[in-house]
């Protein structure tokens, strides 16, 4: 096949076929359109304002590595005026997170950004290795997910940032839409496509790669020779997500626009008022001060289960009730008072009062 010229500059040889448009473009034009689309996503959603302190949730994987690189480039090119930080969570998984954190430490040098690493060990007193040795490999992802979410917020508070950006890409979001549909989780469906979310008192989180295809992120990393880490978590049996992912890739192979189409479907689901009303009101955890829909937040409940050797008590509502009934009957020991708890969470007031705009479908 004779080399085809780039559809944009008509000079250089086309080297990538864009999944979104089918356009065949050269390396330099690809860099330019990829970065410009992320810039447009950021400006259209008004994600930042000058002077914002922004933490990039960095795992050492492809998405967050490319995100850090692109955020730095755009911040310089368009004078966003942002102070950028790298924030990594160390779950304490030997042979996985320790290796990927080495990548993040190299990124810190390569991108000259300050790096904060917060570990589960430091925050909760438990590494994932130790949690898995107690709970086995069935519910471990529940612990990890709940603990990671809170750890990111707390790490961000330590850096006193206004905003966390994560590397979630279009494929990830489409996958989550599919999973929420398959689980019938209507309340989450609309929320999961929001480019920016903010809880009652948590730090804003957004996804500048919301419309970036995974293929393009990987090609970008490859062409730029970015240094990233790619091994599956050794404890990740999230089989459900795995199936959703394979299904999505199969759809994409037939019709590449499937990914954006699914995101648009998710956005089009509007939550009716009566459904919203049944969602619990947010309050703060009485034990650790983190936002919660119950008196005790999920992380505190899970941690208490671990500490009392009833790890699975925190997983289900029924298990938690049993725990409380034992307390009431004075059966269980030790009492919660002597247990390891999470340090109290106080969010320093920031100057930010801007309201985060969500895209209109």
């Amino acid at each position, binding site marked *: *096949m004779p080399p*085809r010229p780039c559809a944009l500059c008509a000079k250089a*040889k*086309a*080297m*990538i*076929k864009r999944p979104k448009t089918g356009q*065949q473009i050269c390396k330099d034009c690809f860099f330019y359109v990829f970065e410009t689309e992320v810039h447009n996503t950021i400006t259209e959603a008004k994600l930042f304002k000058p002077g914002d302190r922004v933490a990039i949730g960095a*795992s050492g*994987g*492809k*998405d*967050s590595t490319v995100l850090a690189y692109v955020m730095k480039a755009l911040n310089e090119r368009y004078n966003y005026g942002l102070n950028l930080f790298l924030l990594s969570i160390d779950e304490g998984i030997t042979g996985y997170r320790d290796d*990927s954190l080495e990548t993040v430490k190299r990124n810190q040098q390569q991108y000259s950004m300050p790096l904060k690493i917060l570990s589960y060990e430091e925050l909760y007193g438990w590494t994932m290795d130790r949690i898995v040795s107690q709970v086995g490999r069935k519910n471990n992802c529940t612990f990890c997910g709940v603990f990671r979410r809170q750890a990111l917020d707390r790490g961000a508070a330590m850096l006193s940032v206004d905003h966390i950006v994560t*590397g*979630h*890409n279009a*494929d*990830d979001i489409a996958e989550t839409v599919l999973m929420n549909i398959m689980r019938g989780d209507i309340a989450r469906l609309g929320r999961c496509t929001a480019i920016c979310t903010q809880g009652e008192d948590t730090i804003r989180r957004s996804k500048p790669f919301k419309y970036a295809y*995974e*293929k393009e*992120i*990987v*090609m970008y990393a*490859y*062409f730029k020779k970015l240094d990233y*880490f*790619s*091994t*599956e*978590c050794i404890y990740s049996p999230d089989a459900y997500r795995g199936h959703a*992912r*394979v299904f999505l*890739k*199969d759809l*994409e*192979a037939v019709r590449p626009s499937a990914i954006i189409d699914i995101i648009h479907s998710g956005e089009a689901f509007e939550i009716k008022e009566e459904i919203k009303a049944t969602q619990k009101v947010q309050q703060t955890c009485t034990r650790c001060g983190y936002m919660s829909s119950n008196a005790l937040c999920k992380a505190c409940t899970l941690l208490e289960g671990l500490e009392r050797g009833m790890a699975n008590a925190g997983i289900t509502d029924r298990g938690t009730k049993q725990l409380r009934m034992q307390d009431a009957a004075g059966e269980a020991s030790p009492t919660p008072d002597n247990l390891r708890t999470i340090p109290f969470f106080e969010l320093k007031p920031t100057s930010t009062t801007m309201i985060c705009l969500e895209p209109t479908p």
Partner: protein
Amino acid sequence: MESTISIKVEFSGGLELLFDNKRSHELALPAVVPLNNDTKKDVVVAEGQGKPADVAYLIAYLRDHLLQERAELFEEGGTVRPGILVLVNDTDWELEGEGEYALRDGDEIVFISTLHGG
């Protein structure tokens, strides 16, 4: 025409784990291969029954001779599993005819998994 061609194959994005954790491989492939991509070493290609070795043949060859475990994570239905990117001399294989690209001596083929961690 030479009876074999040498090519370089590279795996990344976590795919290397299926290939003995080795990223880079040098291979010698027969220049002419059976139409059905049979990769057995002693296979005889009858006159008019062959084709130049192409990427589809390479994928079958890698599956049959280099893959250490879990073939379904690499190959599916005669091509790579969805979510694996292929580059032919640094160009997206979708621009080069995908499996039908006829390999040339010295070509470099890269396989990257997009399925591993963010």
